[in-house]
């Protein structure tokens, strides 16, 4: 379970005080898939870094499985947007997935199995001996997902992971992610600026306001659990939810500009 309560983040530096996050409180239940959307520059990455324990909040608290976050929590994995910069270019695909497990001091036999399973789950069993830069962008992001899966987290954070890949690859990755999430039962918080993506993926969409950030709306996505690029996106309910979130974001934008 992921609990965010009264989270606030103010950047203070060079005589300029920027209030990135005003106040955020929400809970993501065990095994839930929640998406966070908001207008660009609304502090989505700041929120994610605070949850991941990479950035100390100015006020408020984050709890992962009931334990307050003071540094990167052991049961939490992050998939970053910049796959090209989050994979180790000097390690082969297999070793990229393996390194966090090695650092955790896991046994060889256990690691080998976890790495093989994770690569298999993202369809990259054949590419394990390649270097990341020999792969396409979509495949590199799959490696990053495999690394997160192999780590065996209870909470998985994703920061606009599919923003830099082409549309078709993106659709494939979305379906892959849904499948992996359903199989692992992991708690997943998915940050994106793409409204369609958030509705397609999430059980729930948390809509953020413009900076300084608050929660504008918390929308339950009552689409069938089995989703499909054609039928789900063609569902009238999908269009309705998308419209609702779109209107909310437009409102948030005009308020922060005005």
């Amino acid at each position, binding site marked *: 379970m992921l609990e965010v309560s009264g989270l606030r983040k103010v950047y203070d530096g060079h005589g300029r005080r920027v209030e990135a996050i005003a106040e955020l409180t929400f809970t993501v239940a065990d095994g839930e898939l929640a998406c966070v959307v908001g207008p660009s520059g609304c502090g989505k990455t700041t929120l994610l870094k605070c949850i991941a324990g990479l950035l100390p909040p100015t006020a408020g608290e984050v709890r992962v499985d009931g334990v307050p976050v003071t540094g990167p929590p052991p049961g939490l994995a992050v998939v970053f947007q910049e796959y090209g910069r989050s994979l*180790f270019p000097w390690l082969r695909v297999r070793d990229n997935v393996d390194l966090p497990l090695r*650092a955790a001091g896991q046994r060889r036999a256990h690691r080998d199995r976890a790495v093989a399973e994770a690569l298999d789950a993202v369809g990259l069993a054949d590419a394990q001996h390649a270097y990341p830069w020999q792969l396409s962008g979509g495949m590199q992001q799959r490696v990053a997902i495999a690394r997160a899966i192999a780590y065996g987290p209870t909470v998985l954070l994703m920061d606009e992971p599919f923003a830099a890949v082409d549309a078709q690859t993106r659709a494939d990755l979305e379906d892959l992610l849904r499948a992996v999430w359903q199989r692992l039962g992991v708690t997943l918080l998915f940050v994106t600026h793409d409204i369609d993506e958030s509705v397609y993926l999430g059980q729930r969409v948390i809509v953020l306001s413009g900076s300084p950030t608050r929660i504008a709306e918390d929308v339950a996505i009552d689409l069938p659990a089995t989703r499909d690029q054609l039928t789900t996106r063609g569902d009238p309910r999908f269009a309705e939810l998308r419209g609702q979130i779109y209107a909310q974001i437009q409102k948030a934008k005009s308020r922060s500009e005005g």
Partner: protein
Amino acid sequence: MTIVRRTAVVLALPVLLVVAWWFASAGSTDFYRPPLSRILAVFPETWLGARLRDDVLPSVVRLLLGYGAALVLGIALGVLIGANRTVRALLEPVLEFLRAIPPPVLVPIIALVAGIGDLTKVIVIVSGCVWPILLNTVEGVRAVDDVLDDTCRSYGIRGVTRLRHLVLRAASPQIVTGARQALSIGIILMVISEMFAANSGLGFAVVQFQRGFAIPEMWSGVLLLGLLGVVLSLLFRLAEARILRWYHGIRAVSRES
């Protein structure tokens, strides 16, 4: 490009220069500028006999010891300084001063302290080689990618594992650049340290020949030093190709796209 063609391109200019030297010096009667044929004629007897063990080997051993020590020292200090802002602020002015001192000036001073044995020569080589390695390592360590660093933090990769798999690898292109500069400095200092106070070594032998007016032998020593430099830089390239395989790979990929 095929291997044959590439070899031909690499060798074209050296061969041309040797041929030019050969013919330009062929009829020379100048005592100080003997024909290349004479220099090459004295080469085997001068260097392949006892001198190989008495002069060439000690020189190479000193160079490798000094260069190796400079690598260890430069990388270790560089990581320490690069990773810590306070240490960096504290040491930077001193480092700039020390770096600006030409190492040959240190030879008489070091000889006073460490005597005229091998130790002095190794110290001189270290004192010159360490700077490019140290300063490049500092830059490399400072420039470690933020996202990669965050990745390590969130996956609990720290301590020695982080040093080995993130810091040293990320800084390796810069470290290699520094090490390459240091190698040529090392060869220069090896020769210079042997010219001052020594009883063996390549630099010592060349000076001996010059003082004894053994001019063709002296030239052959210069030739040998050049060849030694070529061999060492070839070995360096082989090591670099292994260590920076990923780096050259990325560059090749991004050139194609």
